[in-house]
């Protein structure tokens, strides 16, 4: 039984297949990269796994449980947490506030105990605040703890997106182009953090355009083109495959 498994997953928008008959397995602890040209269905794939879209056909199962068509919040509770391609944040809230909202799955006490602020809830709250500060420190956001998310620079906002996902106790982290709009150094910083997150035992599914990033971090790569899976395997081998080069650069005419 695979950790996360997709079986012939198809998503149709009208008659257009954004994702067609895609099957693959994700093993626990790996960093799986997903690449493909624009419009090849990478983000749709993450939207399908995270429950934002329901698959037209096929099944997605996580730890032996069929999760296709479940509500996003239920999927998050199972441990599949995503980030977004654009900076989707609570812009007016400070970092600590948005992080605490996102950490609500870390609490065992229910809302009524939170409302009464019982002693045990306070202890738990303190523990969660500690976790939040640790996560912020890990992602170099600690100095921004009391600033609103909207005043952060783009790079920090990207990191905050990852931090918010980490706060929800993920088993699998679905990262949708975490390095968009970053320069080489910033991208390197993200890569290091992805490795560190992976070392904590969190499986990572990484959508990426930046090949350098992918070769650095991914243990396996899946290549998509026009909604179909065209290759699957070691990232270095993938880059030399003729199908992959064709999908990215077009064919050579003699």
């Amino acid at each position, binding site marked *: 039984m695979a950790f996360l498994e997709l079986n012939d997953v198809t998503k149709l928008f009208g008659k257009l297949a954004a994702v067609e008959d895609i099957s693959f397995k994700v093993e626990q602890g790996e960093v799986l990269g997903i690449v493909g040209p624009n419009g090849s269905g990478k983000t749709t794939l993450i939207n399908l796994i*995270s429950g*934002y879209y329901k698959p037209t056909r096929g099944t997605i199962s996580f730890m032996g449980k069929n999760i296709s068509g479940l*509500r*996003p*919040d239920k999927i*998050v*509770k199972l441990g599949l*947490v*995503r980030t*977004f391609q654009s900076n*989707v*944040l*609570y*812009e*007016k*809230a*400070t970092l*600590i*506030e*948005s992080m*605490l*909202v*996102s950490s*609500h*799955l870390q*609490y065992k006490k229910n*809302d009524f105990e*939170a*409302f009464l*602020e019982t002693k045990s809830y*306070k202890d738990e*709250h*303190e523990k969660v*605040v500690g976790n939040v500060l640790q996560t912020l420190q890990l992602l170099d956001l600690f100095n*921004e*703890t*009391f*600033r*609103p998310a909207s*005043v952060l*620079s783009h790079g920090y906002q990207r990191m905050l997106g990852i931090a*918010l*996902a980490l*706060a*929800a106790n993920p088993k699998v982290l679905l990262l949708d182009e975490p390095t968009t709009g970053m320069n080489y150094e910033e991208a390197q910083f993200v890569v290091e953090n992805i490795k560190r997150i992976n070392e904590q035992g969190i499986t990572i599914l990484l959508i990426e355009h930046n090949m350098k990033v992918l070769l650095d971090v991914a243990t396996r790569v899946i290549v998509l083109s026009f909604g179909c899976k065209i290759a699957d395997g070691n990232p270095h081998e993938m880059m030399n495959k003729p199908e992959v080069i064709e999908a990215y650069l077009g064919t050579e005419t003699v």
Partner: protein
Amino acid sequence: MNVWLNRFRTFDWRNTWPKVVAAVPVIIFLLIPVFTQGEIVLNMLILSGIWAVAALGFTLILRTGQFSLGQAAFMAIGGYTSAILSVVLGWPWWVAFLLSGIVSGIVAMGIGAVVLRVGGIYFSIITLSLTEVIRIIAQQWEPVTHGSRGLIANPPPNIDLGPLHINFMANSIPFYYLTLLLVIITGLVFWRVGKTRMGGTFFAMAANQTLAEHEGIHLMKYRVIAFTLAGVFTGFAGAIYANYLTVISPLIFGLWQSIQIMMMSIVGGMSSLVAGPIIGSTVLYVLGIQLAQLPIYGISQLLYGAVVVLVLIFLPKGTGLIDLWPRIWRKIYKEVEDYEIPGEARQED
């Protein structure tokens, strides 16, 4: 977003002053009957308080990002429940009163669980029609509600507590304290909801629904909780209203009342969960009463509308009257504008 981190920040005057500021009006309102026992003043305050509770409910629902135009319906449910149980069926008054809030809450939960599946403008439209549906039921269900003739609702029985005789018929003071108690309890509960973890969840849902859902927040659950809480307290308010006026008819709770509740919340300031609706409802209710005494027919509605529009123009984005004093303060002391959120003034490096 209301800061629910006060344990984390060791001391911050911004977390402490609301408690001090809130204590002052509570003490003043508690002492009002000592200074004046004029029926006109008390009557005005009682009815302002009843509308304040309804406006508080509206604002709580608004905190989850939903715009309910059906709050008058829950007042009607509360009022009718109390009147039917205590007068028609002859149950003890206090039991009927307690059940009025509970029944209203149960109805809110049931309706909310269905209606809150659609969000945004569709929810507003459905709750708008809910107001009408409840009114029409009250009008048509003759055997229970006596149709448009309405029901007689009686005030609570006298209470004898040794030296203290509370007679609800003699004057308005007992009703005044009953209403004040309801306003205080509602205010405390909602203030606490806003301040603790649930307030953060509500904020997240309203600020960014997609992100909130992808962080594991069950949107429906918290929407229904807010709608139910609002329903319970609005039901109590409706019961007090019916028993204070001693009559309830389908005309009392209609579309206009639902819109009035919304306007009270907006004018008072939606940015504040407790103080805003209370200020808004008091100002608008007293204003409405005063304007109604003007001799020219229709001029009161015109001026009433003008006040609402003026507030919307000069105190926009949900700031409302609650922001009036800080704004004047900022105008007088320009340097206060330089006050920034800690950290925000720091240079980007």
